[in-house]
């Protein structure tokens, strides 16, 4: 089935459809990871977005049972140069096209994804659309221009009800802004007793559970659209140790007086080098974010910058000067990507234990 990919700037690509045979509109972004498409496609942070894979051959090892980052993927489309027709891996249960078909997500192949990436790099992330090649293109472009992308992605992907992920260790509350399963995996490896709460939980509800620590999860979209988070964070910080990842990091910064901005095309991939300022040590990190914390906005806040991306110097981590709380922009939980920063979960555990001792 012939499909067209239309970009807000008027560019049109012709390709072949795979997965669900539906039209779609979303924000187009690219990720540079060469492996890990299953994790990316199921990552709730991509909610509302169409993912361009810069690696040209996607689907090689199919889809397996274990590498899911959410139960229902919420990305709007998958854009590739070529989708593998015969996946091969001992864990493979399904091909990528079959999976996307089952999940109602359209894919388009045959795209010059390098050209597309260069466009996104220059013009920034933009609105895009996948339609049938039989559809009226100029009408579709008009529609695309008129489209206002939703800003309620967090509400869409967050759990409606709290649920437990029982363990025998420390009591952790995870606030689900679009939680990746890998965060739960890391906590369960450390035997934590986890309760996952919806994004619009109140500070009181959390404190009632008497957590040893609270995690602010990753999630999709613009942090400024997650209005209630500031009050929530302000209500718990200083009372319980906090650890935030990605959107959780941005929300924590905002709650402490910082501001965020939309990056041109963001950081998405598995090879972003991040320096921990205190030790000078560089880790390769898994990243997926289109917004970042503005450096100037942190002046006169209680936040200390702890991590930076070494190339564009963007802020990759902060720590509260008084409270036991730190957050990072990248994913120490990896999946997909390197495990270089996974020790941050251990630091969180240590912070919890130290806090307990003091109180």
């Amino acid at each position, binding site marked *: 089935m012939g499909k067209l990919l239309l970009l807000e700037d008027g560019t049109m690509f012709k390709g072949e459809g795979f997965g669900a045979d539906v039209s779609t509109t979303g924000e187009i972004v690219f990720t540079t990871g060469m492996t890990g498409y299953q994790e990316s496609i199921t990552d709730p942070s991509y909610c509302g977005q169409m993912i361009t894979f810069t690696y040209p051959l996607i689907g090689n090892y199919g889809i397996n049972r274990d590498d899911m980052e959410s139960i229902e993927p919420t990305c709007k489309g998958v854009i590739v140069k070529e989708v593998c027709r015969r996946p091969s891996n001992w864990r493979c249960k399904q091909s990528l096209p079959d999976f996307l078909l089952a999940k109602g997500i359209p894919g388009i192949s045959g795209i010059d994804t390098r050209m597309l990436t260069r466009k996104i*790099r220059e013009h920034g992330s933009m609105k895009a659309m996948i339609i049938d090649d039989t559809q009226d293109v100029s009408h579709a472009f008009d529609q695309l221009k008129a489209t206002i992308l939703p800003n309620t992605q967090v509400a869409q992907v967050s759990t409606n009800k709290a649920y437990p992920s029982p363990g025998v260790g420390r009591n952790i509350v995870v606030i689900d802004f679009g939680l990746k399963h890998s965060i739960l995996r890391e906590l369960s490896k450390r035997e934590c007793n986890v309760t996952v709460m919806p994004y619009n939980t109140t500070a009181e509800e959390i404190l009632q559970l008497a957590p040893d620590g609270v995690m602010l999860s990753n999630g999709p979209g613009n942090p400024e659209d997650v209005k209630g988070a500031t009050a929530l964070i302000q209500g718990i910080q200083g009372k319980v140790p906090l650890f935030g990842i990605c959107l959780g990091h941005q929300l924590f910064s905002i709650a402490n007086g910082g501001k965020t901005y939309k990056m041109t095309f963001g950081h998405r991939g598995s090879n972003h080098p991040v320096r921990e300022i205190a030790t000078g040590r560089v880790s390769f990190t898994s990243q997926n974010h289109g917004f970042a914390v503005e450096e100037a906005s942190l002046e006169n806040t209680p936040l200390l910058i702890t991590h930076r991306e070494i190339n564009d110097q963007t802020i990759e981590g902060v720590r509260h000067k008084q409270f036991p709380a730190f957050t990072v922009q990248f994913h120490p939980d990896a999946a997909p990507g390197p495990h270089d920063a996974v020790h941050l979960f251990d630091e969180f555990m240590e912070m919890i234990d130290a806090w307990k001792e003091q109180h």
Partner: protein
Amino acid sequence: MTKRTDIQKIMVIGSGPIIIGQAAEFDYAGTQACLALKEEGYEVVLVNSNPATIMTDQEIADKVYIEPITFEFVSRILRKERPDALLPTLGGQTGLNMAMELAKEGLLEELEIELLGTKLTAIDQAEDRDLFKQLMEELDQPIPESDIVHTVEDAVAFAETIGYPVIVRPAFTLGGTGGGMCDNEESLREITENGLKLSPVSQCLIEKSIAGFKEIEYEVMRDAADNAIVVCNMENFDPVGIHTGDSIVFAPSQTLSDVEHQLLRDASLKIIRALKIEGGCNVQLALDPDSFDYYVIEVNPRVSRSSALASKATGFPIAKIAAKIAVGLTLDEMMNPVTNTTYAEFEPTLDYIVSKIPRWPFDKFEKGERKLGTQMKATGEVMAIGRTLEESLLKAVRSLEIGAHHLELKELKECQELTLQDKIIHAQDDRLFYLAEAIRRGYKLEELHVLTKIDDFFLDKLLHIIEIETELAANPHQLDSLLKAKQYGFTDKKIAELWEVSEEAIRQKRVQANLLPVYKMVDTCAAEFESTTPYFYSTYEEENESQVTEKPSILVLGSGPIRIGQGVEFDYATVHSVKAIQQAGYEAIIMNSNPETVSTDFSISDKLYFEPLTLEDVLNVIDLEQPLGVIVQFGGQTAINLAEPLTKHGVKILGTSIEDLDRAENRDLFEVALKDLDVPQPLGDTAVSEQEAILIAEKIGYPVLVRPSYVLGGRAMEIVENQVDLERYMKEAVKASPEHPVLVDRYIVGQECEVDAICDGKQVLIPGIMEHIERAGVHSGDSMAVYPPQTLSAEVKEKIVSYTKRLATGLNCLGMMNIQFVIQNEQVYVIEVNPRASRTVPFLSKVTGIPMAQIATRVILGESLESMGYVDGLYPESRYVHVKAPVFSFSKLQKVETSLGPEMKSTGEVMGTDTSLEKALYKAFEASHMHLPNYGSVLITVSDETKEEALEIARRFQNIGYSLLATEGTANYFTEKGLVVSLVGKIDNEQDESVLDVIRLGKAHVVINTMDKSQETATDGFQIRRTAVEHGVPLFTSLDTADAILRVMESQSFLMESL
């Protein structure tokens, strides 16, 4: 900055001559490293015995020593230069072993020289099997069950406990030399015995076979601050069991999920951190295709062939960065030289697929054992880049220059079913083509997977290529199918074949439909950051990124994969040509397909197109770039062969015109030219049938030299003594036809010499005459060459100069020319003219100080020799004597004939320079590891024709204190003539020690064997030669070479005469 300021002077050890397992990649690495160290302000002292390298050019290091890489010579240089530090990790296994010897002998400590990059302990931990095993256990990294053995019995006992199959890996040998897979006790005994002998520490590892696992490699780097990165990972098409150097490889890994990739990445980083390597390291892993189980197979604590491949595959210059790390710089303070906007602390991400296919020498060694195993056999490799795996693979296939422009070897169509299956199960160099043939015959992928353990993913890619063939055939002249085929890498030629039209017709159709390739940039970051790297590959997509500049450009064609007959020498000339083009103010564009070379370093030229060197691919680049012209003189036969078809397409060939190239290469035209110019050549003629050949031979008299016309490196060339052999040759070796004529020449036994000349149309500069040690009959590439000539009379030299001038101007040479002469009774005959740069260009450039390829390029671009300050004729001779000696890789190639003849067999060369011929020869022999003890035993078995001459050689050996061993015929003759000889038993001797046992047991320290022309006793001689080579005993098959080494030994020994 963390740069070391406590050291100023650093010595770099090169890798010596090119041999199988250690090729041009170390020239690339060494050159980068030296330049990087100089860039940081250090004084660099380089030692390398290989003159055919860019790294031994004067401007690469502050001091360049072209001397043997042996303890004797390197320690002298160290004592003289007193460097502060030694960087041993860029010269392959040779450099590393040399450093270890220097350290263990206490010299480094004595001279207070620090080892940079990798500490001795790390080298030991990675290379010594025992220590490696210990380290892996400490790191909790799994390795296959194994045991170190020092005796065959221990090996057998251990194999019984873990079960067969097992792999034998001798310690400290190059490219796994002497190792192998054993299915039973018999083969285990044989391989272990040999392996123990080859291992300098008499140690072998017996290891549980994990054949069939996925073989994955990680190229990792680490700095002193413990920052560590993975530059690239690669997945072998061939599962574990075939040496990675002999495997088809893809980058990045193709069938690994992120979980598996991260598992192996973690392991690799853990290992490099534990070894505390400051620089690059290669980790080879085996991954179970059915679970997360993996094993660490091997760690190379140095820059390797794989790291050169990874550098070219990603753009990330590993050797350069490794050198800077060695002097203290850290990854997070250096810029990524590709983007220049991001830091070197970066893990490249690819947006294309890279394929590497090894290039094997079995076109030259038709009788060689082609089965692949743990011993590497390839001499070189090609790499290709594509946006689909099929495209990448097909580009690599056609880069091989083995007569395949597609995934197809036509002769396999005739192959029997059983043979086909056997070739698929027991991989040899051409298994890829057998697999394709099997798929064409309808084999199911599942069957092929069972037979080969190759992943279905890869097999499906082959199937896809074949499906596209079918689709093309079913849809002739359809643009849709054409576009699809192009996107998957099909050549116009293959499409033309399927559509039964000419290749040109397809090209025209494509051009009309605007179906042209675009060129994408290799930028390490998948376009995430802006880059300006001038490094491109073609594909059929939408956006072209290669911007043509205003500046007039010149395209230089490289020489493709390294093979016997076309080695690194041509890359040397190519790089020099590029430099001259740039200096003349043009943009220099290079095209090549070889990842090992300096020429494919993107910082060498203004633009690099990493592409196959086929007419179609070259024309595509020309269509885009519109260069002023193309230079084909420096890329060996690969580039020269493109001259004619390119001219037909209206492309301007710079330098000698195509008509004149033809006058040198076409036998009939050449003869006419020689007559016109009054230059004598041996009698001869061209035959298009067997009868004709016999008539010619009768007319000119035997022996005759026969060969097909248009050959490279003397392929299929033979000296034939009589009509019976000639008939056999015409039937077996060549199939003469009007399209494929055979040359029959009088074989003149005489002194051989050669010249390289540069001609600007008026004047001819002859940098020097090189005299060969071996008489005519041994291929010039396999002969030892001496400059300046030691035995030629002034008249002969004059004649050579005069003929060279006549030929150069008479054939309208513009640029380089190489001429080979044979001298008999003071008469000079021309035997061959090559209208291009030859393999002696680097040697002669170095010994004369004339940058020949640069001068030739400037001439080609219009300058005159006079304006550059050169005078017509022979350049003044140097005061030193220089010897170039060939180096062979016979020990790695089973069943290959080692006797020297008209077909070239050497893989590399070394150079020895000193004040006398004997001293220079000594160095050349030492550098090529032809080391003879001061006394010992020499085994002589020679043919009847050479007995008389051998007698003299034997007598001289006896005089310097050697005892003589000989087989019956030779022994009788020697005894008759009054020499004391010990008789050794024949090969089939059951009771006593046979001649082969004598060699195996190390009782002969040198073997001299000349081949019987009659072919009858050939097999005995063959076994003697093979046994010598496989047991590392110096072997001489030409009495001239034996004479040369005797001269050296005589010059070193004292007179022992009684009164």
